[in-house]
């Protein structure tokens, strides 16, 4: 019997976090199927916005998760041939690694700047080795869960061997067993932490025995294998998540962040077969700094690392049949319902069963126009010929969408001629506004104009709309489901039992879905300012969203149905580093998305298209789909939107190469920066 109090989608991010038991039930293995490289030796950079499934995938490397699968008797989602591995890692924001550089360690400031990256490397090494030993301990306690790959017999011998390795510069001298090893490593980590909490100086011995990035980790791997704790051939995967914190965080000085990033690059650049790194990062935060610390060399894609861009994996391609997201969403949806003990009457296409098909545009238009007269819906100019008026008003009473499209067609000038020419002839018999491509490009714009004129709110409902709004992001999809289920339960809770709807058998009504989707959209909109630098971005998104809406609504000839997005010349954008940085950050945080733009212009220059993330469409009342050509913008346009949004250019941050924008026309530096100092003359 269905429980009308429980929302199966209550916990949104349950698979982003390592609570093993729930993870096992709810984790969908679709992304795994498209990310096998993640489980093969070699370094992999896993890119994606929040909600792309990045954290979910990285959690598979945790032994606690593996153990949970074993206890639940559920097959581990990683293919059998790739499932024998040992995972270890760190979370940069929680580890305390970002504290390094906040306090002077050595005597001179110059020394410190030079040495902080080395301390960072040392701290990371010890943290990772500590976590590696923790993983071994977990795997040793329940060997059957891990294919018995860990043999604990020689752990003490391993500890003794590792302690003698020269990479430690004697820090582990005298360690003879695994407990002492772990304790000594913890002691060093603890000393770093204590140093950053108090006035106590960092021990001189630590200062003298800094380890080189990666080497202790690699030696640990070797010793584990040499002592047969691990068999040869079992890969060791080291996770470093939230790498973007190093390059785009204000928590650490820009120069230092850059060096720390280069330290990590160096670890990857060794192409060390003993250990493979798994780097989790947002998009755009990887490519901007590939230098390896201490050299001019750059990491090379495919030689030093491979990338898996989850947003790309999950986004819709030209060939819709290759799009994996709908199946991923379906699986996640079914698991949630099953976990909440809903009876499912059909095993497949549950999303469609529950949410139904999306309403056809014609029916939508009729809904929107229910309370409005044809005159209001069409909004014809007063000088229209009578025959056209009569034709359109009549058509509007039966098919308002068709009428609005027809009116737009009539306003257009066509391939030759001038605006208004089409009105000189009577309405054509063949209904050219119904030609498939012309119509398809303008349907959403027409619906937007209808709602604006009829003072109605645009609605989204049904499987197709929900999948489109989710735009390949599983968290967005689940949050839409959460809101719909909440609204559904709200409407059902106090009905008598025999009158209640079973959503899996009868579906959830479109009206409920529509208001819930609007609530979900508002949630994602408000969430923008929850993220780093989010208030500036939210105001920018406001300015952009309003601009798109104005363009789409006012374009009564529907000449520019694609103007719910804009396109920029890549070369021009690269000259405006700060604008580019701002837009990239908006993409990295999922507020915008971008794709390469194959321009129709003769110059064929490389361009990029930028759109609001579809889930924001209901808030701004713009179509979520993107057709034809976006608005051809320049960086000046973007700066204008930024200035309308009161976004102030930051001071120059040398290491990030961010400069104030130069005005196109005058070549003068824009005076938008907020220097002089806040305290001048005060």
């Amino acid at each position, binding site marked *: 019997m269905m429980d009308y109090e429980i929302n199966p989608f209550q916990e949104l991010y349950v698979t982003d976090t390592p609570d093993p038991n729930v993870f096992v039930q709810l984790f969908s293995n679709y992304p795994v199927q498209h990310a096998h490289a993640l489980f093969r030796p070699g370094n992999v950079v896993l890119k994606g916005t929040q909600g792309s499934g990045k954290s979910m995938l990285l959690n598979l490397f945790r032994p606690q998760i593996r153990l949970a699968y074993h206890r639940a008797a559920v097959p581990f989602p990683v293919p059998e041939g790739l499932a024998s591995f040992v995972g270890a890692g760190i979370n940069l924001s929680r580890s305390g690694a970002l504290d390094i550089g906040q306090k002077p360690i050595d005597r001179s400031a110059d020394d410190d700047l030079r040495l902080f990256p080395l301390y960072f490397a040392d701290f990371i090494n010890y943290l990772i080795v500590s976590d590696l030993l923790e993983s071994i301990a977990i795997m040793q306690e329940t060997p059957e869960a891990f294919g018995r790959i860990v043999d604990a017999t020689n752990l003490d011998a391993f500890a003794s061997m590792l302690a003698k390795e020269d990479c430690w510069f004697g820090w582990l001298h005298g360690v003879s067993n695994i407990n002492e090893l772990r304790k000594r490593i913890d002691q060093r980590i603890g000393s770093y932490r204590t140093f950053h909490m108090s006035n106590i100086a960092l021990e001189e011995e630590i200062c003298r025995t800094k380890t080189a990035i990666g080497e202790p980790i690699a030696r640990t791997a070797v010793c584990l294998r040499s002592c047969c704790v691990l068999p040869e051939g079992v890969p060791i995967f080291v996770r470093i998540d939230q790498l973007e914190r190093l390059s785009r965080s204000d928590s650490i000085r820009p120069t230092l962040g850059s060096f720390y990033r280069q330290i990590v690059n160096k670890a990857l650049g060794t192409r060390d077969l003993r250990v493979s790194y798994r780097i989790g990062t947002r998009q755009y935060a990887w490519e901007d700094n590939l230098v390896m610390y201490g050299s001019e060399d750059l990491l090379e894609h495919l030689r030093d690392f491979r990338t898996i861009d989850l947003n790309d994996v999950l986004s819709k391609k030209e060939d819709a049949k290759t799009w994996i997201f709908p199946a991923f969403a379906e699986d996640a949806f079914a698991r949630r319902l099953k976990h909440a003990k809903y009876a499912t009457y059909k095993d497949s296409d549950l999303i469609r069963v529950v949410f139904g098909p999306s309403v056809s545009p014609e029916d939508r238009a009729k809904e929107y126009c229910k309370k409005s007269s044809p005159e209001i819906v069409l909004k014809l100019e007063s000088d229209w010929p009578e025959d056209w008026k009569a034709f359109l008003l009549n058509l509007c009473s039966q098919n308002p969408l068709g009428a609005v499209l027809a009116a737009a067609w009539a306003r257009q000038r066509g391939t030759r001629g001038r605006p208004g020419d089409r009105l000189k002839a009577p309405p054509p018999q063949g209904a050219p506004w119904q030609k498939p491509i012309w119509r398809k490009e303008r349907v959403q714009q027409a619906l937007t104009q209808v709602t604006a004129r009829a003072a109605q709110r645009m609605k989204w409902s049904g499987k197709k709309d929900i999948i489109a709004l989710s735009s390949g992001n599983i968290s967005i999809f689940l949050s839409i489901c959460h809101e719909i289920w909440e609204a559904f339960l709200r409407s059902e809770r106090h009905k008598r039992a025999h009158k209640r709807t079973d959503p899996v058998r009868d579906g959830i009504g479109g009206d409920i879905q529509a208001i819930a989707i609007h609530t979900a959209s508002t949630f994602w909109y408000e969430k923008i300012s929850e993220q*780093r630098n989010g208030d500036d971005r939210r105001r920018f998104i406001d300015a952009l969203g309003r601009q798109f809406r104005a363009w789409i609504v006012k374009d009564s000839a529907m000449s520019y149905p694609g103007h719910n997005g804009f396109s920029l010349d890549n070369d021009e954008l690269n000259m405006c580093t700060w604008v580019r940085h701002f837009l990239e950050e908006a993409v990295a945080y999922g507020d915008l998305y971008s794709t390469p733009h194959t321009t129709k212009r003769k110059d064929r220059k490389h361009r990029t298209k930028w759109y609001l993330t579809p889930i924001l469409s209901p808030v701004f009342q713009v179509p979520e789909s993107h057709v034809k050509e976006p608005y051809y913008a320049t960086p000046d346009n973007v700066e204008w939107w930024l200035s309308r949004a009161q976004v102030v250019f930051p001071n120059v941050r040398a290491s990030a190469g961010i400069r104030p924008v130069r005005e196109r026309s005058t070549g003068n530096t824009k005076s938008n920066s907020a220097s002089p100092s806040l305290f001048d003359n005060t």
Partner: protein
Amino acid sequence: MYRPWGILDWVIKRSPPVLWGLLGCLGTEERSLSAWTRLRALGCLGDYRMLRIADRPSRFTQRARLRLRERMSFFRQNGGRCKFLHNYDLIDATYGEIETGIAGDLKNIGENIILDVTSMPKRFFFPALRMCLESADIHNLLVTYTAAHSYTPDKLAENCEEWAHLPLFSGTYTRQASEMLIVGVGFEGLGLQEQVDHSNPGKPIKLIFPFPSPPHSFRRAWECVRKLQKHKASDVFELYHSDYRDISDCFDRLISITDAGRKRAEFAPFGPKPISVGMCIFATITGSEVYYTQPKVYHPDYSLGVAVDDGVPAIYTYCIRLAKRDLYSIPRE
């Protein structure tokens, strides 16, 4: 145990009769100078040092400069000396700079310290208070907080940073994971919701809800609680009321929630400053981690005016250490 607190005049009258050294923060708000002004009027202000902390450039910068000029004008007109002002960058000041600067200030203002946290961002007052608590040179320590007459209806602060430790609060290292997250509930999430949403589903979240508090505040706080609970199972949360002005109340509550510190907790102080001070003291004693999403920009009219309590400015003053005796400690059996 009673830990004295009340209006400044009242506390000073009953505390050791000393000259007090003040470490405060001169900000855009009128109340940032209330404690300094009143101490001078009472004739018990010794040496003082005032921090001035610059936000990142923003749409508020011009207005902030105007407000700062107003504050500086008042400060100078009332005998304030600019050489006792120390400037910091809100975000770029490193722990080392903060620690060295504050250590120097504390040394200069003597052994009887008043730390005025009214306009001091958490990034500064948390380490400052920690340093005071850990200093054996400080014989008497008071903390002051001046309540505002009202707050801006707009967002109080903008462009928060990522979830990170506050300076000097990365916590004592242990392999043991913390057992709970203790959140001081405030007006705004400022990135807190993001963190709560992504926290371990099984991990208890204890909400320290400010009550009694002014009704406008308490409504906003409930709205904040609702948002926090939106995407989590409700049984994860437990809510505890704590007087928004009473550090001692909060501190005692933390003792009971954590079983006198035996249960390891992480802290997220998003609520009123007295509650945050309570968390700071507790975290200092227990070596706990404190997380925050530091805003880069504060609204220049974050607060307006100074509240009045029974006809006098509401400068709440808390006795933390008297005659070398710490009033805030965790009982050990």
